């Protein structure tokens, strides 16, 4: 029962943390609650569909279907998080100002609401499909299946609670620093997801490794440890990275930063009124 709880907790944790960060980072954007909830809902449907079709997916594309789908989902999330951060680089200050004055929602410019939906959908679908597959299998099996199912659901609940705690923690950051903190969080998260995508494409044989195990820090911080896993989710920590993962990580980091600087420098007010 406990083993099942731990497995489900780890599967759900990544999705929960990503949703928490996205919810925090989109603070003050009108309609974000509905779009994030929509992403979670669609994500659960997607997760069930993927779990249902797991066998077909596994044998598709020469046995590489799952890795390629994962890479695709991750890259979509990377693109959407990039858009969100670039948008925030020109609207964050205004959001912070309006939040502190009236606490009202800001309706300005082309808000990256679709990005919120896609990112939460991607996170929930990818991690959720594994959780659903696992839960179904134990629920269908005889013997201890009831206590294992209960343990599994407990693990899911615990993952959601940790996500909630992160969200509440984020909200305690003073408004003055809030959006720069969430921007950095999203930037590192995005780079980590891009590195994961590179890993999957390499696993599927579509990208060269460019050197496996460039370095090995597993004796300092094992990826199997709790801290290692949290850092893996939040900033993309990999104990033994390959060259292609490093390239995607640094490439994404530099590209998103450059785009943020580029867009952030433009005066946002005039562009907004023209856009909406």
């Amino acid at each position, binding site marked *: 029962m406990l083993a099942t709880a731990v497995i489900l907790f780890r599967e759900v944790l990544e999705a929960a943390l990503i949703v928490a960060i996205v919810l925090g980072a989109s603070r003050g954007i009108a309609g974000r609650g509905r779009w994030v909830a929509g992403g979670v809902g669609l994500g659960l449907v997607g997760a069930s569909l993927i779990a249902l079709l*797991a066998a077909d997916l*596994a044998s598709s594309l020469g046995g590489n279907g*799952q890795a390629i789908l994962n890479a695709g989902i991750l890259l979509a999330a990377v693109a959407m998080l990039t*858009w969100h951060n670039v948008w925030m680089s020109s609207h964050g200050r205004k959001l912070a100002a309006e939040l502190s004055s009236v606490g009202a929602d800001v309706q300005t410019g082309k808000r990256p609401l*679709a990005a919120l939906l896609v990112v939460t959908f991607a996170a929930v679908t990818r991690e959720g499909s594994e959780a659903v597959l696992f839960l179904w299998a134990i629920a269908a099996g005889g013997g201890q299946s009831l206590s294992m199912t209960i343990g599994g659901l407990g693990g899911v609940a615990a993952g959601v609670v940790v996500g909630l705690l992160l969200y509440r923690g984020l909200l305690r950051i003073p408004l003055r620093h809030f959006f720069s903190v969430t921007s950095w969080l999203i930037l590192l998260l995005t780079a980590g997801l891009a590195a994961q995508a590179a890993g999957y494409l390499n696993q599927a*044989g579509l990208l060269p490794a460019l050197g496996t195990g460039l370095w090995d820090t597993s004796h300092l911080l094992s990826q199997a440890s709790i801290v290692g896993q949290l850092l893996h989710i939040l900033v993309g920590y990999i104990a*033994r990275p390959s060259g292609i993962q490093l390239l995607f990580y640094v*490439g994404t980091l530099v590209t998103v930063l450059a785009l943020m600087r580029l867009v952030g420098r433009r005066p946002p007010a005039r562009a907004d009124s023209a856009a909406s």
Partner: protein
Amino acid sequence: MPSRPVAAAPSRSLSRVRPSSFAPVAAALIALTLAFALAAPARADNAPLITVDAQGFQPKELALPPGKKVKLTIDNKGHLPAEFESYDLSREVVVPPGSKVTVYVGPLKAGRYEFFNDFNQSMRGAVVVKATEADAQGDQ
């Protein structure tokens, strides 16, 4: 509501591209990924095979040559889904019961690379790469 979502692609060469042209770039990237996927190389013969069932992985230690990209097949002969995962190899794939999946690994240096079943962590095994083969000399 944004009528045309502007998607920024994670390419390294994008820093000079204007925001309005992200969407086509993203579309092109997805198309490229698909093209690659469809052109994936045909299944090679006598590929190294790891099976997993209620007893665990078989073999528990798989010998692989150094300095070579190797196509591993994971075959789940059990009744439960398994997740083949390795931090050492940086690999992770779900193997539904009755399914075979492909995992490319390497080129690897000599060493021991542990893997486990993330859905049942008492199931463990390792890929062992020994630098005794003649191929190793070609690799630096």
